[in-house]
C-alpha cells in the first residue's frame, strides 16, 4: 500500500461507554485509525474486545461517547437525514448473517431495485435491469433464475453473494464487513474473498474486515489492527504484525491459534 493514497476515513480518540455509575464500562476507548483509499484493513479481536461496537460507530449506527470521525478530512456529521443518506452512500456494511440484513418478504428483484434507487440516478427500466444483471454476474449468480425468489429460498452462500452484488451496485468508498465468511463453508470462502478483492481493485474501495480470525486477517489485509478490551493494542502492516508481533496480547493471540506447520504449544 503506498502511503500517499488519500485518507478517506479517520477516527480520533473514539470512545464508547455503556452503562452509568458503577456499571460503566468502555466498550471502545481512545481508538484512533486512518483508512486510506484502496486499503484493506482487518480489525481483529476476541469476543468482548469491542470490535463490533467500533464497527457500528464507523458505520454511524452508534454514536461515539466522545471523539471524532473525520470523513474526507471533514468532521463527519450525521445530524440531518440528508447527512446520513449522503454518508451511507459512501460507507456500507455487510454482516455475518446475510438473512437478517434483508427484508424476508421482498423478492430479490425488489431488494436490488431498492438498492439502485438509493443511487438517485435517472435510469430507464431497461438500464436498471441491466445493472442488476451485471451485479449478479459479478458475484456469479444467475439473475434470471433469482429475481423472482425470496431470500429464504437462497442458500447462505448465495445470500452473502447477493449482499456483495448490492455493494457492487452502490460502490461505496468504504465497506465494513463484519465476519462476512463465518457462515460460509471453507470451500466457498475463497470465491467470496476474491469478490471482495475484485471490488477493491475496481473502485479503490476501502474494505474493513471485522473478525476474530487472525488467519483470515493475515490472508486478505494490508493493515491489521489488534483490539483488546476496547483498545487498539497493536497496528501495522499485516506481514510485520505476524512475523514480529510486539504487544504481548498479539503474541499470545498468535500463539493460541492452531497452525498447520508450526507446533501448537499445549504444555
Amino acid at each position, binding site marked *: 500500500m503506498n502511503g500517499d493514497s488519500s485518507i478517506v476515513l479517520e477516527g480520533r480518540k473514539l470512545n464508547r461507554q455503556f452503562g452509568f455509575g458503577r456499571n460503566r464500562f468502555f466498550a471502545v476507548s481512545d481508538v484512533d485509525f486512518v483508512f486510506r483509499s484502496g486499503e484493506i484493513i482487518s480489525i481483529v479481536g*476476541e*469476543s468482548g474486545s469491542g470490535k463490533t461496537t467500533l464497527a457500528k460507530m464507523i458505520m454511524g449506527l452508534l454514536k461515539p461517547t466522545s471523539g471524532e470521525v473525520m470523513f474526507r478530512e471533514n468532521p463527519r456529521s450525521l445530524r440531518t437525514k440528508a447527512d446520513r443518506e449522503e454518508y451511507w452512500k459512501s460507507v456500507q456494511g455487510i454482516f455475518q448473517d446475510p438473512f437478517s440484513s434483508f427484508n424476508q418478504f421482498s423478492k430479490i428483484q425488489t431488494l436490488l431495485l431498492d438498492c439502485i434507487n438509493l443511487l438517485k440516478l435517472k435510469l430507464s427500466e431497461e438500464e436498471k435491469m441491466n445493472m442488476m444483471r451485471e451485479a449478479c454476474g459479478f458475484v*456469479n449468480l444467475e439473475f434470471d433464475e433469482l429475481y423472482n425468489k425470496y431470500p429464504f429460498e437462497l*442458500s447462505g*452462500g448465495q445470500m452473502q453473494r447477493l449482499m456483495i452484488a448490492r455493494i457492487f451496485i452502490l460502490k461505496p468508498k468504504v465497506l465494513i464487513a463484519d465476519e462476512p465468511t463465518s457462515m460460509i*463453508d*471453507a*470451500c*466457498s*470462502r*475463497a*470465491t467470496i*474473498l*476474491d469478490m471482495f478483492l475484485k471490488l477493491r481493485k475496481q473502485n479503490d474501495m476501502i474494505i474493513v474486515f471485522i473478525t*476474530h*480470525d*487472525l*488467519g*483470515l*486477517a*493475515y*490472508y486478505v489485509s494490508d493493515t491489521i489492527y489488534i483490539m483488546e478490551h476496547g483498545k487498539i493494542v497493536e497496528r501495522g502492516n*499485516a*506481514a510485520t504484525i*505476524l*512475523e514480529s508481533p510486539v504487544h504481548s496480547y498479539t503474541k*499470545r*493471540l*498468535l500463539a*493460541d*491459534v*492452531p*497452525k*498447520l*506447520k*508450526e*507446533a*501448537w504449544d*499445549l504444555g
Partner: protein
Amino acid sequence: MGQTILTVSELKTFYRTRLKENVHAVDGVSFTLEEGKILGIAGESGCGKSTLALSVMGFYFPPLNFKSGSIVIDGIDIMKLSREDLRTKVLGEEIAYIPQSAMNALNPTKRVGKFIEDILREHRPGLSQEQMQRLAAERFEILNLPTRALTAYPNELSGGMKQRVVIATSTILNPKVLIADEPTSALDVSSQKIAIKLLKSLLAKGFVKSMLFITHELPLLKHVADDVMIMYAGQIVERGRIDEVIFKPMHPYAQALMGSIIVPESDIRGHRLSSIPGAPPNLKNEMKGCRFADRCIHTVDECRKEEIPERARGERTIRCLFDFDYQSEETAHERR
C-alpha cells in the same frame, strides 16, 4: 496398535422431516477406534458429521432414526440392547457426548453439581448424596477446575468455564469412548486451547479411553487427532493419518478442503485458496455413484454409474475411482 474399543459398521441413519421426507445424513459409515487414540471427523456444515456423532451414541429420538448397521463397544452391539439397558448401561457409562453448543448444554436453572448428582443417581444408585458430591469435587480438583463451579448456576460461569464443566460432566463416569462434537467452535482461541488441554489430559489420565473429535477446523484437528476421516454428503471420502491427509490429500474433495485452509502462517499470504463451485448434494434424494461428482473437475461417466466403494491406497482409504496426487504447493498455488 491398541485394543479396539469401538467398531462402527455400515451405519446408516436418517432424519425424518416435518414434511415426511427422509434426509440420509449418515449413509454407510464404518470405522474403528483404538484405545488411546483420538479420531478426527472433519467436513463442512451439512456433511453429516454432527449426525454421525449423535448416531454413534446409539440412542435415537425424533427426528433422527436408525436404519441399519452396527455399533459395537467392547464386544457389545449396543443397537441390540433394549432402550432402557442402553440408557442405564451405555450412555455416559461406555460412551459419552460433548454437545456442539456446550454454551446451552446445561440446564440454566440447575446448579452444575446438582446436575452431576442427577447423572450419578441414574448410574450409581448406591451412592449417598454426600458420596456423589465428594466424587464430583474430587474429579473437578484432579482436572484443575474450581470446585465452586459445582455450586454455581451455568449463567454464572464464563463461556470457557462452562465448556470445561461440560467436559468434566460428560466424563464423570469414565466412559470408554468420548464423542466431542465441535467442542471448541464457540470459544475464543485462548479458551479453546485450555479446553483442548483438558480433553487431552482426560485421555492421559485414563478417564476416557478413546475419543472421536468432530470439527470443521482442520488446523485444530492437526494438533488434536491421530487419524482423521473426511466426510462429505454422509459418507467418508478419505481417511488416514492426520498429517498425511492434511498435507497430501488424495480425494479430490479432500484436496479442495485442504487447499482452502487459512492459517496465520507466513506462506499463506499470496496463496491462491482453492474453491469449488456449487453446493453439496441434497441428502433427501437417493443418490447413485460419487456424491462429489457434480463439483469435481475430474468427473467421468463412470463416477455416476454405481456406488463408489472405499479402497485402500497405501495406508490410506479413499472413496474415489482414481489416483489423484495432491499437487505440490508451488504448482497448485499461483502467486497473487
